[in-house]
């Protein structure tokens, strides 16, 4: 009996110990002088919920697969160098956290979209504080829900568009939180295709080849407090609905066909409190309907807003247009848009009743912008005496410019935004 009791107590202790071991996550150390010399070995040895700590050093590894919930943490930014051989980290499990790594040299592939870190079809990934250098695609999310991508630095090497990947690439995702990342040197800084209910906050996307941020077929997303500078175009929003954009800065997106913000076939968006500074075209709008543009500041752009055909029910009110070469270009077939209550620095009407609103309506579209729309080469005559004469006579008696594009209540003073 006593022997049986002893046996049982031993069993219980062992079981308790085992249970404790299972509940208590283990930490696996990777490094030249640690238990695991390679990351691959540590990943296969680890159990679900373990922490894999990678110590300083350079690891020539690629094709690493994370297939269980792990917390992978770099100590002192260890370098994972794929030496142009292919993808570095592929995550195919829920609840994986990757932080503090430097991933580099994925290598260009024309057949596969190799990435620094890929998350495939799993939820709740957290990718934080990593540095990705020359990774073709940086962070690639496919069919991912509830992921957090924050405080990463992604710098690509500028090549031609076909051999560059996107910085943060998301496809068929939901509820992403992309925050405070810094992206440069990619094709698109951040790319969303079929991504819903996500937010992009406080990122800086500069010097990318095509767009700083690109939405395709994505709905109910929001982005705010981001900065987009020196990209081919700051942000492109295409074929999407219910995108809210506020307090972003679109700066210095220069070049032919360069825009601060490009809107194409989008519906029901709000664009508020943004700054558009020194872009070739501040906002380029094609076929977009029910968009509200309020309290935005347009300063020193080539064209502040260029509105091509098929734009209905747009509400452009209470914006500041200051020192833009041309404030507005509107093609003839747009309807039912309002342009009231803006400040236009080129307005020179008067305000006799001193209510702060000009007594004469302002026509933001000049004859020259109309001509320019038809004959882009005419840009060489910008600000020439002849063009001024022409604009003046058109202003006195409009013949060519659309009569319904009119600010009925132009503000006399710049609005405080």
């Amino acid at each position: 009996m006593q022997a049986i009791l002893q046996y049982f107590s031993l069993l219980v202790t062992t079981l308790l110990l085992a249970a404790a071991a299972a509940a208590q996550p283990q930490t696996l150390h990777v490094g030249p002088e640690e238990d695991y010399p390679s990351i691959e070995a540590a990943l296969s040895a680890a159990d679900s919920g373990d922490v894999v700590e990678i110590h300083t050093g350079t690891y020539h590894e690629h094709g690493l697969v994370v297939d269980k919930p792990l917390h992978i943490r770099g100590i002192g930014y260890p370098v994972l160098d794929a030496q142009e051989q292919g993808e570095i980290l592929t995550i195919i499990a829920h609840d994986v956290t990757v932080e503090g790594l430097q991933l580099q040299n994925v290598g260009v592939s024309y057949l596969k979209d190799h990435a620094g870190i890929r998350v495939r079809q799993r939820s709740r990934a957290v990718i934080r504080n990593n540095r990705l250098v020359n990774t073709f695609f940086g962070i690639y999310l496919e069919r991912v829900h509830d992921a957090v991508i924050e405080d990463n630095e992604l710098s690509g090497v500028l090549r031609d568009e076909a051999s560059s990947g996107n910085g943060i690439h998301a496809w068929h995702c939901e509820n992403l939180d992309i925050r405070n990342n810094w992206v440069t040197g990619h094709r698109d800084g951040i790319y969303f295709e079929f991504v819903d209910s996500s937010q992009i906050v406080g990122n800086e996307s500069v010097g990318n080849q095509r767009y700083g941020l690109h939405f395709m077929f994505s709905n109910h997303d929001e982005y705010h407090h981001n900065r987009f500078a020196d990209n081919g175009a700051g942000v492109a929003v295409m074929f999407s609905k219910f995108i809210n954009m506020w307090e972003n800065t679109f700066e210095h997106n220069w070049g032919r066909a360069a825009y601060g913000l490009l809107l194409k076939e989008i519906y029901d968006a709000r664009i508020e409190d943004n700054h558009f500074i020194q872009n070739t075209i501040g906002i380029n709008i094609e076929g977009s309907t029910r968009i509200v543009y309020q309290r935005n500041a347009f300063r020193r752009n080539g064209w502040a807003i260029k509105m091509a055909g098929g734009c209905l029910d747009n509400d452009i009110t209470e914006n500041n247009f200051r020192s833009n070469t041309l404030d507005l270009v509107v093609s003839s077939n747009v309807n039912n848009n309002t342009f009231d209550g803006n400040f236009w620095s080129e307005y020179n009407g008067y305000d006799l009743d001193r209510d702060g609103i000009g007594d004469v309506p302002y026509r933001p579209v000049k004859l020259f912008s109309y001509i320019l729309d038809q004959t882009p080469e005419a840009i060489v005559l910008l600000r020439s005496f002849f063009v001024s004469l022409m604009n003046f006579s058109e202003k006195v008696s409009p013949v060519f410019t659309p009569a319904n594009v009119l600010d009925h209540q132009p503000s006399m003073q710049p609005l405080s935004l």
Partner: protein
Amino acid sequence: MLKILKYSTYDLLRSRWAYLYLAFFLLFSGGLLYLSGDVSKVVISLMNVILILCPLIATMFGVMYYYNSREFTELLLAQPIRRRTIFWGQYLGLAISLSVSLVIGIGIPFVAYGILHGPEIWNFFTLISNGVLLTFIFSGLAFLIGLKNENKIRGFGLAIVLWLFFAVVYDGLFLLSLILFKEYPLEGFSLAATVLNPIDLSRIMILLKLDISALMGYTGAVFQKFLGTALGMGLSLLTLALWAWLPVWGIQRIAQQKDF
């Protein structure tokens, strides 16, 4: 030549016209700065004035000065001096004194405003140097008109036509042909047409500094390549220099064969 230059500059700098011209620029740029306070906006307003006024004043004043100083020229011709020395000296004297009025008239308000320490200094510099170049080009052309035409009325008429052509008519024709032939590739044409008119060329050079975003939005590759680079800037400067050299060369040629 330096002596002739010295004296004709001295003479012109003390004429009522030079003061008027100076006062205009002082008031205009000072007033604009005071009213607007936005330097780049002021630079653009001034650009329009400079592009129109500098050529106008240079041609009209140039022709007037040429005709007024005919007898004096004859006095000099009888002196032991080379002919071209006399005309180059007078031409340079005219161009320099007009330029001095321009530079001081615009310079004082801007310097008082603190441009020297601001980031707009280069815009300002581009503006001024283009104004000076235009003054040189058009006063040279005016001298050519004077040398070619004994008849004052005809000379003045031609000077007005010259100004009107380069300042207004040229751009009108240019725009018209762009619209008429918009089905064809026009980059080369518009580039050439711009370079061939010194007023257009200086306008583009100033705009390259100020409105670069708008110009870069132009969709033609040739144009962007030309305007956006140091090569484009260099070529534009070279062409302007050529424009400035042309009347100098013409003056020498005509002066060599002309009877007085």
